[in-house]
Structures are given as C-alpha cells and as structure tokens.
C-alpha cells in the first residue's frame, strides 16, 4: 500500500530504540513526508515541538525513561502544546497497559501493537489519516475553542452518515458541555447509552447531570461506570471532584485513592490527590503520593516546580521542616524561571521557619517581598502570604491575600486557603471572612466603575481602568470579559485598531479558557463581527 496521504505531512518519531527509529524513518521517508524528524527521548521531542509543528507524532509507549508515552501525551494536551489536529499514535509492545482508559482528551488517536511489517504499518497509518481528514473541520474548530463551530462540524458528519459518527458524538457532547448546554448534552449521551452503555457516554452523562445540579444522580452514574469499567480513570476523577464540591474532602480523597490502587496516576491526578490530601488534613498521604510520583518522573519534563512545593508543604505540615528543604533545593536547581523561583522561595521560607532557621528565613523573605509585586498564580500568592505572616510581615501578607481573592473572588478553594493562612497566623475565622468579603466588594466596585464609565460614553477611561485591572487580575473573568467588551465597543465607535484588537482577543481567549460558556463571550463576538475590515490600500 502506498501512503499518498503522507505527502507533505510533517512527522515526528519518538523511540528510544535506534533500530526502530531507523526502520520507521526508512518506511516514512519513502512515503513522501514533507518533514520527518526522529528523536530518542521526550526532552528532544519537546524541543522539536517548541520549534515547529507536526501533523503526526509516532511515539513509543515504553521510552526506557521514567516517563512513558502516555504521560508525555497528557503533558502535551494539558499544556496545549500540540494542535487537536495533530495525530498522536502510540506504538506499544504490550496491549496490557492501555486497559487504563485516560480522559478522552488525553487518549492517543490510535495504538499500533508491535511488531508489524511495513505493509501493516502503512495500512494502519492510512486508516488513521482517513480519520484525521474526516475530522479536520472538527479539530480546527477545537483548536480555536470555537465550540459552536465544533458542534456544526460534528452535525455535518452525523448527517452525512460518516463512519466516524461515534467519534463525532463524543466530541459534540463535550462541546455542548463546554457551552453550558447540559440538557442537550444529557440527551445526546442518553441516546448513545440506549445503543450501548459506553464508558465515555456514561461519564459524559454524569458531567451533564452534575452541571444541571443533580450531583446525586451524577455520582450514581459514575459509581456504576466504575463498577463496570474499573479502569475508566476519568470517572474516578470526576466523582472525586463532585465529592469535593459537596464538601466531603475525605470521601473525595478516598475515591482518588481507589483510582490510584487501579493504576499509578498521571501527574495531573497525583497533583489533584496531593492537593486534596493537604486540604483534608492528610499530609502524610500527599507526601507519599507526590514523593513516589516525583521519584518515578525524576528526569521528566512533566514535573512542575509546584509539585515540589506541594511535597515540601506536606512535610512541613507533619513537622518535618528540615526534610522539606531537600526537595525545594533540588527543584530550585531545575526550575529557574521567576514564577517557580518565587513559589519555591516562599515554601523555603516556611520550611526554614519550621526548622528554626529564623535568620535565613528573614533574609530570603526580604528579597521575596520585593520581587512579588507583579501578577502571580493563586498558589504562589498564598505561599508568599503564609511566609509573610510567619516572618512578621503582616501588611505584605494581607496584600497577597487581597490579590488572590480579587483574582478569583468566587473560588471556594482560594477562600479556604486564605482562611487557613490566617488561621495559621493566629487570626480568627471572622477576620478571614471579613478579608474575603472586603476584597470581593472592592473588585465589584472596580468593575462597576468601569462599566459606568463605558455607559456614560467615556470609553477611554473605561478601557484604561478595566485593562489595568484585567492585567493585574487575569483570572477574574468578570473584569477580563468587561475589559474585552469595552475595547470592542471602542473599536466599533472609533474604528479598528491593531493593538486594541490584539488586546481584546487576548482577553477573550483568557475568558474562553476559564469559562467557555461565559455569556459575555457571545456579546464580544457579536461586536467584533460588526467591525469592518480596513479597506485594502
């Protein structure tokens, strides 16, 4: 069989075996690929992916490293490092590992079981490429996070009776949920289940039910799914989140521990489990799970500085502050960017205080306050706040907490963290509640002021106020969406401006990322669609 479909395609092969790389290279180079790159490990693959994009990634599952092909794929998908259009094919010698079903978005497009002849390989690849072609419109719309277009493209496939109908149904269900159309998603999943109770359909149904507020029914569906498909990891993860939202942290933790007993978790699940264990007052569980995972992935790019920070936190919570310094020192050697440095330093201050090294802690703290003046993720702000209170820098600590709350005013997790920091600093829960309430109010006042300026026609002042706030509080969707909206209004009045348009689209993308069904998105899009393109000169 010839591989006409490969004409002009860019292909990346990741395999630790020299022989396999050379075999695949030989077969693929004869098939007219536009670009073919073979690398022996994940590190080099990541470098290649930073420099260019590929249509097909062929990755061996067992890479002879601490991180396997599945972990690598998850890293790529969760960090948006590859397009949805990129085919990720897992080559595996053993069918056993794939029994663990990943969340749909982290599943490979296909598995090729070794060994295979060149003809078998070509035939399989041909099938996958056909599917890639059929789903092209869906994948492109998914990359743009344009869920309405995803649904339209899926409907077109379904109406034409395409062979990939079930794939189209799966993607459509997900897109409906992204848009908050949970009732329609529920109907779609029930329709699939009436044909066959596929695990992804039951998982989707549970998501739809939970979105509509029926947490009990959603939990029942998930328990049923786990009983019948015990290796459907996504069901454990969703069930755990539902238990967590209901406030039962112990039950949430227990669900993830059940999943962990079925299969060692991906880093995302380990992070979730670690977080949950810390919140549930079980630091020993967090220490064990994070310690094992970081040991397993010790040379892998799937790790983050925050993993080491959590590990250190789990140790200091058990009065093992001296031990907690070791992972932090190790992580500081590896993660040298500003955000990682701030986070790790904050935890180092906390560990140093716990270890009785007050002078060293104070020294580190001074530099930390100076550097922590700009935007930072919530966890970093919380860690710095805790370090501030421990070292007597109350004012700076309060400022950090204010920033964290204003950045995510409705986030219960942030509220819980803020209360915990204040409690540890000897403050009452009333103090914590007051801090949260004050900052929630402040951010609403700020937003209202911007909106009022816009309504009174002073769009420039509104843009200045809301853009500053949006840049300072990038996770606050209310502020960021209104900033995008007033910019779009301004352009409608004054005409299109390249710089303003870029800013507007950046804000829009931030809102879509955090809240795909946010009602302001449609308003922004309507205004943008009314902008006339500048006449060609």
């Amino acid at each position: 069989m010839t591989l006409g479909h490969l004409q002009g395609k860019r292909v990346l092969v990741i395999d630790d075996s020299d022989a396999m790389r050379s075999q695949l290279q030989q077969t693929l180079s004869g098939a007219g690929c536009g670009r073919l790159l073979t690398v022996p490990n994940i590190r080099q693959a990541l470098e290649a992916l930073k420099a260019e994009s590929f249509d097909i990634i062929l990755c061996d599952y067992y890479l002879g490293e601490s991180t396997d092909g599945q972990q690598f794929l998850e890293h790529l998908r969760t960090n948006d490092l590859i397009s949805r259009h990129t085919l990720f094919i897992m080559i595996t010698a053993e069918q056993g590992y794939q029994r663990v079903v990943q969340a749909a978005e982290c599943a490979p497009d296909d598995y090729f079981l070794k060994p295979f002849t060149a003809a078998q390989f070509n035939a399989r690849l041909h099938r996958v490429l056909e599917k890639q072609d059929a789903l092209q419109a869906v994948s492109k719309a998914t990359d743009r996070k344009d869920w309405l277009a995803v649904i339209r493209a899926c409907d077109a496939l379904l109406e034409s009776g395409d062979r990939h109908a079930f794939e189209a149904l799966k993607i459509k269900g997900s897109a409906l949920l992204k848009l908050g159309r949970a009732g329609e998603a529920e109907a779609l999943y029930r329709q699939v289940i009436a044909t066959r109770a596929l695990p992804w359909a039951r998982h989707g149904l549970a998501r739809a039910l939970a979105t509509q507020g029926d947490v009990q029914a959603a939990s029942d569906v998930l328990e049923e799914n786990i009983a019948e498909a015990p290796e459907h990891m996504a069901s454990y993860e969703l069930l755990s989140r539902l238990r967590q939202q209901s406030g039962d942290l112990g039950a949430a933790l227990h669900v993830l521990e059940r999943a962990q007993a079925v299969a060692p978790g991906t880093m995302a699940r380990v992070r979730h489990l670690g977080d949950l264990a810390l919140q549930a007052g079980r630091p020993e569980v967090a220490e064990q799970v994070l310690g094992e995972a970081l040991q397993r992935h010790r040379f892998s790019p799937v790790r983050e500085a925050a993993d080491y920070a959590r590990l250190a936190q789990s140790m200091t919570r058990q009065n093992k502050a001296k031990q907690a310094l070791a992972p932090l020192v190790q992580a500081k050697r590896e993660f040298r960017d500003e955000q990682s440095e701030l986070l790790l330093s904050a935890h180092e201050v906390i560990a140093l205080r716990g270890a009785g090294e007050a002078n060293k802690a104070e020294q580190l703290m001074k530099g930390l306050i100076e550097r922590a003046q700009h935007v930072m993720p919530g966890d970093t702000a919380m860690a710095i706040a805790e370090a501030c209170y421990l070292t007597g820098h109350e004012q700076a600590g309060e400022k950090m907490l204010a920033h964290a709350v204003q950045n995510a005013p409705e986030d219960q997790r942030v509220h819980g963290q803020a209360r915990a920091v204040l409690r540890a600093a000897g403050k009452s829960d009333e103090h914590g509640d007051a801090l949260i309430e004050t900052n929630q109010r402040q951010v609403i006042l700020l937003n209202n002021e911007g909106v009022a300026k816009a309504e009174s026609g002073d769009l420039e002042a509104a843009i200045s106020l809301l853009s500053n706030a949006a840049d300072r509080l990038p996770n606050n969707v209310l502020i960021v969406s209104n900033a995008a909206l007033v910019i779009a209004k301004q352009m409608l009045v004054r005409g299109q401006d390249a710089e303003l348009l870029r800013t507007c689209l950046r804000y829009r993308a931030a809102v879509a990322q955090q809240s795909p069904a946010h009602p302001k998105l449609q308003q922004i899009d309507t205004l943008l669609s009314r902008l006339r393109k500048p006449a060609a000169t």
Partner: protein
Amino acid sequence: MSEVTDMLLTAAVHGVKNQLGELLWRLDARGDCLLEQRIALRCAQRLSSALLLWRSAQDQLALNLEAVDPHEMLDDLASEYQALFPDLQVVRVEPIPARSSPGWMFVDRTLLSMVLSDIVHNACRAARSRVSLRATDWQQGVCLEISDDGPGYPDAVLDTAGSALHAAAEGQTGLGLYLAGSVARAHRRQAQAGAIELCNAGGACFRMYLP
C-alpha cells in the same frame, strides 16, 4: 507477581518485540523471505498470547469498549494476511444475502484484533487456496466468521471448542482458540455473553458471536 517483576517482564517483552520487529523489517527489505516473516510474526503472536493468558488468569481482562465497524476490521485483517500469504486469496466476503449487514459492534478493538489475527493466521496456514472473512448480524450483535478450505479442525479441537484450558497447552491453535473464547465471553450485554463456535464445512469455520 510483584510490581518489579511486572516491570521487568514488560521491559523484556518490549525488548523481544522490538527485535522481532527489526527482524520483520529486515526480512521485508529483502523481499524474498515471506516464510521467515510469518515465523517472526508467529513468535510475536505467541508472546502476546502468553501475556494475554496471564492477564486473563489474573482476572485483568477488563474491556475498553468502543464502537468499531466490523467490515473495516475484517478488511484490515484480510489485507494484512493477503500480503503475508500472497499465494492464497484472503478476502472479506459480503454477508449472506438473507441476513443483514451489521452496523457497529461494541468491542475492545485491540483485544479482538489480537485474537482474530491468530485465528486468521491459522486459517491461512491450513487453507489450500482461500480464506474468507465475513461479518453478519446476529440477534442484537454481530457474528464474525473466518473460514478456510483446508482439512478442517481435528475432532479433538471441535470437542473442546476453545473452552478447555488443557487443550490450549497443546499448541498455538489451542491457545489461540482458548483466548478467542475468553475474549468473546468477556464481551457481555446484560445477561448475554459472547461465544465462539467451531465447525467443519468444506474446511475449518470459526465463528465469534459478540452481543
């Protein structure tokens, strides 16, 4: 088996399969070694079967069900084996006119491909000139049929029909049928479980019923 042993076993299988893969591709490049290619593939199948048997004994045959087009799966199998046995006619044939063509089947694609590859391989070895693959509707599910024009199954194999483990020990055919039976039975729909059936009708005929 401990986690370490499991890891070592996986690494060993990975190594052996890589080497078999390398061998296959080198033989392929020569272009005159089909028999040797078939032997290498057979070795890999035995290895996979042994692992599958072990997982099945550990009760680890959890299925990853997905919607699969039965014709597409049989087409792929037919073309793979046609390339390996060019002197035979390995083809997917249309369903019997009286019975309708199935739409989708809900199966574990990897497991099913694996056990069916083994059955097709055996059929190709036994056939005089032709191996036929066919998918037809069966109750609420699908019947997959693989038949050849060889000497047919020995009586002893027909008697056990892939259900007895001791028969599996008697060679790759027995093991392949035993695993095909296990994988079929693991596919269930409410109270109904999958099954296999063997018969001789102008050659060996293997049927797998999947609810």
